[in-house]
């Protein structure tokens, strides 16, 4: 049975069959030929996989992200960050990375971040003298930060799959997200000095105060989302729902950029986007149950123990696997397929499962822009009408920076776990 659950999904996946159908078909074939397993276990496990309140955070954060990016909030956030960094050489690059950090704190989606930030800042970077290759690389890779800075859709899915606290995962993602931002900012400063790029404008308190006033509602979003979670007022799911109400009210009545019809259409498209992931969650429910009852994870743990791998060797192997998988499959699907196999291995290797969740998230966030099939590559190609070869060349230094940060995040657990220890 275990073999069938391995080669059949691999063959269907390679044939381009939808991922949910890959898991569903493989599971139904196994159920049909296993006399002691009832077929009714299929729908039961599909329902059970979705019957988790924590997963409601996914549609809520996707809807909130849509409201923030189309309702005028992200544009005001960009102007505010630009006012802060405008007086520094390399200010536009720093503004881009700073906006990704802030946008990450209101939206958990890498693709949404690339689209929202790139729409405004890519033309600004080009006009500011940054070459096309650098601008494309910065914007395309910057989306990874939004997947790592909380709230993060990938962390919610990992939390549900590995039965770990989403609030702990969120706080553990802060320092890794900031670390990647700092690495990128250092490169931007070096790049702008080597090309003698000018600052956008002189730093002026008047500009900061004016843009802060204009962006005060936008700045309230991360305060509400993260403040409500860590003050203990709301669970991450409730906080995501509150963010939706906040986004609707600000976009409709404060900035007046969305009508109620626009909001309804956004609710529909957000639900559709969510369902692309959730239908895989449902199918993965049967698949991971079958893996467990057929003893695959236990066999893998025994096999790994026989190899006598040190934890660092195990983590290195996991990084290589996840980076490879992240290039060809979206992050959420990769977690759902691999978590039932990798989490028992990580536990057996003595790796903290919150730290492991951050390693998984950072790997898959990098996978989102890694050639040949990272989704953000195609977002940038479509939005900026740029040749793929140029985007890929532009990504090289940013990929190297993020891989270096990944190495530190993997082998220095304190980067992730220091803050997580303060959450009960």
């Amino acid at each position: 049975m275990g073999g069938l659950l391995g080669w059949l999904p691999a063959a269907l996946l390679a044939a381009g069959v939808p991922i949910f159908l890959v898991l569903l078909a493989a599971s139904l074939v196994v159920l049909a030929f296993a006399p002691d397993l009832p077929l009714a276990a299929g729908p039961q496990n599909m329902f059970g996989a979705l019957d988790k309140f924590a997963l409601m955070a996914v549609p809520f954060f996707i809807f909130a992200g849509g409201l923030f990016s189309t309702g005028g909030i992200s544009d005001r956030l960009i102007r505010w960050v630009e006012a802060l960094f405008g007086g520094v050489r390399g200010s536009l690059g720093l503004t881009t990375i700073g906006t990704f950090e802030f946008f990450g704190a209101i939206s958990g989606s890498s693709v949404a971040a690339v689209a929202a930030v790139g729409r405004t800042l890519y033309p600004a970077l080009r006009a500011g003298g940054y070459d096309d290759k650098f601008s494309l690389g910065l914007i395309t890779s910057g989306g990874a930060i939004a997947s790592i800075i909380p709230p993060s859709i990938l962390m919610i899915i990992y939390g549900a799959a590995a039965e770990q606290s989403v609030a702990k995962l969120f706080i553990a993602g802060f320092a890794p997200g900031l670390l990647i931002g700092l690495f990128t900012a250092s490169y931007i400063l070096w790049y702008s000095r080597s090309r003698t790029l000018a600052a956008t404008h002189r730093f002026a308190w008047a500009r900061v105060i004016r843009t802060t006033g204009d962006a005060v509602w936008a700045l309230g979003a991360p305060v509400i989302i993260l403040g409500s979670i860590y003050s203990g007022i709301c669970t991450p799911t409730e906080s995501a729902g509150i963010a939706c109400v906040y986004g609707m009210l600000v976009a409709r009545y404060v900035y007046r950029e969305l009508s109620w019809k626009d909001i309804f259409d956004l609710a529909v498209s957000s639900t559709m986007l969510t369902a692309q992931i959730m239908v895989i969650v449902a199918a993965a429910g049967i698949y991971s149950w079958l893996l467990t009852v057929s003893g695959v994870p236990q066999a893998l743990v025994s096999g790994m123990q026989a190899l006598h791998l040190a934890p660092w060797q195990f983590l290195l192997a996991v990084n290589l696997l996840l980076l490879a998988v992240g290039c060809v499959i979206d992050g959420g699907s990769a977690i759902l397929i691999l978590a039932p196999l990798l989490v028992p291995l990580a536990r057996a290797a003595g790796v903290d499962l919150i730290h492991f969740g951050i390693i998984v998230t950072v790997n898959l966030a990098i996978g989102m822009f890694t050639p040949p099939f990272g989704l953000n590559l195609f977002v940038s190609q479509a939005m900026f009408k740029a040749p793929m070869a140029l985007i890929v060349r532009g990504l090289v230094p940013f990929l190297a920076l993020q891989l270096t940060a990944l190495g530190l995040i993997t082998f220095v657990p304190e980067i992730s776990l220091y803050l997580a220890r303060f959450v009960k």
Partner: protein
Amino acid sequence: MNRLLGLGRLLLGTLMLTAVAINFANVIGRYVFASPIFWAEEAMVFLQVWCVFVAAALITEAGNHLRMEALESLAPAPVRRALAIGAAALMAVCSFTIAAVSSRMIVSMIENDQRSIVLEMPMALPYAALPFGFTLVALVALRELWRLARRRGAEKQ
């Protein structure tokens, strides 16, 4: 069929906004009126289940399911077409199977008067999303299969 899918979109938006409203009312009820909505979490989860399986049909119709296109895109056109036909047939068979098995489960739930823990709602109601959604998915897949077969026939002529 198209009208049914249009109704599905309307249902999705309504269910999502209802879930947002229940969540908001629950938090406000808890902190402002010291009276949380005790059934809120269960209701939201059931709404989510309905959203996912109704949306699955719309995603199938739009051809937007997440998949790994890396190797398939390298194959020649006739192979890609054959793979598309195979995937649509597999989708129809698997979806009808889930719809049929879950329908039998629902009948058994009604007979046993199985109810949810908090809302005490008949469990057949949230579970009905499975046969409803997967029947729609299967029908959409059959229509796609028909389209692909007709296109192939027209090309041969």
